[in-house]
């Protein structure tokens, strides 16, 4: 006797719409230092370690309506409509360098993070240098 489960692609779209579409995404850089903060620390905690000066600015975008990617079997979202789209968060140093080892993502000004990326070793952008983090939000199985 076999029992098999299948989730509809429309359900992935429904969850994506409820969780992401139309919401703001903030991407910020920080240095964790000795704070001990983790992915489950609060946004306020992480904001206290956020970079400042030398051209630093948070990156923000609004999540557009995504699309189902049949190849990948998931519903994908970015800053433009459709599947196979992304949020490209670019940061540029000016007038001095920027050093960081954490990239954190916040959805709709939430009190907790969406996610945390760790760079090891830390990254230093000299004045005039840029770095881009490409983020794709997806709902799959």
């Amino acid at each position, binding site marked *: *006797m*076999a*029992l*098999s*489960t*299948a*989730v*509809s*692609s*429309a*359900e992935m779209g*429904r*969850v994506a719409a*409820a*969780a992401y579409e139309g919401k703001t995404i903030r991407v910020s850089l920080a240095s964790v230092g000795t704070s001990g903060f*983790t*992915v*489950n620390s609060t946004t306020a905690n992480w904001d206290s370690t956020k970079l400042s000066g030398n051209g630093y600015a948070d990156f923000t975008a609004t999540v557009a309506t995504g699309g189902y990617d049949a190849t990948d079997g998931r519903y994908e979202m970015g800053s433009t409509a459709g599947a196979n789209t992304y949020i490209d968060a670019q940061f540029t140093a000016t007038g001095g360098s920027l050093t960081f080892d954490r990239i954190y993502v916040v*959805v709709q000004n*939430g*009190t*907790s*993070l*969406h*996610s*945390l*990326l*760790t*760079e*090891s*070793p830390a990254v230093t952008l000299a004045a005039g240098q840029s770095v881009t983090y490409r983020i794709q939000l997806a709902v799959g199985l």
Partner: protein
Amino acid sequence: MALTLAISQFELKRQAAAAFEGKAYEVFLATNSGSLTANSTYSAWQAVEVASANGYTPVTGTIGTGAWSSANARYELPAITATFTSSGSGYSYNTVCVRIGTETYLHSIVAESPSITLAAGQAKSYVITLVQDD
């Protein structure tokens, strides 16, 4: 140079709250001749739902508030236990359909192979656990 990604457990909770908590659900039984899939519409599945006779009735309810499971490292909604009971001359089916809210499409289907026949007095339960995982 290594770049690692972690999703916050609170993000999974946020998603679960947005997508599932407080929403109505319906679990019903159907007989699929083979032409329908998980991506067929709710109305198409309703057209092949088991007839409302011999004790059959769909199971409905509201999804409760979930909790983070440290053991499974995922956010789990309260399990939905859908019990179907037969009386009279019984009934047969081969698919369990799950719908959230009033959506045009189903959340999911569970296919039984071979099909199930519930004789009078028999009952069968399906335990459905909705989760948000990374």
